[in-house]
């Protein structure tokens, strides 16, 4: 890398580059609504990621549609088993309380 780090440290932290590089910046806030819905879902579900995965898919889909991300298959992004139903049905507070994981 260009930051001049020694390469010989193993086992401890190594800053590996991200697989797909960097997200282009969303200067116009085109996918901001999807982000807000996802953050609300996280708050309702005690920051559990599993119930909100379909919103992840919605957000990445929004990015791909607007040219802010290369279009790719869902399985390459780890979202093959997520069905992207309309977020309105899943954001029901009654639904969220049922789904909250007992461990967290």
């Amino acid at each position, binding site marked *: 890398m260009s930051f001049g780090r020694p390469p010989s440290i193993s086992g401890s932290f190594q800053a590996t580059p991200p697989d797909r590089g*960097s997200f282009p910046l969303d200067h116009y806030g085109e996918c901001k609504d999807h982000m807000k819905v996802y953050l609300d879902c996280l708050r309702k579900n005690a920051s559990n990621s599993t119930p909100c995965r379909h919103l992840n898919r919605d957000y990445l889909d929004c990015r791909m549609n607007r040219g802010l991300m290369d279009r790719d298959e869902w399985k390459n992004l780890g979202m093959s088993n997520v069905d992207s139903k309309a977020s309105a049905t899943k954001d029901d507070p009654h639904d969220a309380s049922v789904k909250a994981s007992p461990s967290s």
Partner: protein
Amino acid sequence: MNSLRSAFLRPSFASTLRLCTSTSRPCRIQAFSSWRTATHIPRERIAWSRAPKYSWRTMATETPPPRASSPPQPPHRASRQQMYAARNRSLLMYTAAVIVLGVGVTYAAVPLYRMFCAATGFAGTPKVGMGKFEAERLVPVENARRIKVHFNADTADALPWTFTPSQRFVSVLPGETSLAFYKAKNKSSKDIIGIATYNVTPDRIAPYFGKVECFCFDEQKLLAGEEVDMPLLFFIDKDVLEDPACRNLDDVVLSYTFFRARRNAQGHLEPDAPDDVVQASQGFADYEMAPRAEDRKPTSEDSPKPS
């Protein structure tokens, strides 16, 4: 050799060549009249080549005249013509097939080369989705223990940005990809390019922490007064469940630090901060680093000169 020549040459001339060899007499290729007198060829054979519709100048590829109008030819003469015609037709077919195949390969070469480069990483093609980012590894492990990933955000002093995480922590399953957001606002009146470094603690989770896509190590330009949300897609590899060192690991801290960007001597963007500050942001505060080449002071002793 003779048969190869005969495939291309005019039939009458080829037949005369064959006759030359069969008589085992010295045979020179001369003009027709002098040749006839010089060699000892029976007359009736010459009569074929002097047939009015089929002179010796006739090319082999020309279709022979219709059978009804030509004089009755001996059977082996007609079959030889057919053989030549058939051979020429097959040669034409093979040549056409080679041309079509060549054009097809030219069209197919572009996607084939692209596939070859993607598979082998030849000519600098980045290999995406390999190794620990394969699609099979990005599947959540159901009913495994959850790991809480806490988010932390810092900025360098020289950077007039506010940089905060949009969520305090996310509780993820191993193997599950999930999104996280950071918010950055440029408070100054100028456009600034920033560059971020990140760090994961504790150290033993570092080999299992994978980022599919993020915003670090790449220049991020914020216009004056602009506020932008930066996403991050990450996962924790499911092999963390099998690592005995990570058995009781439940909390991970992911920390990002934004620096102003500057260009170094090689033209690459790097954080505009002293080296020890940059290394500290990546978790190397306790490590002693050798100074970089441009920062090294010349030694007082000279190296012994070779005699």
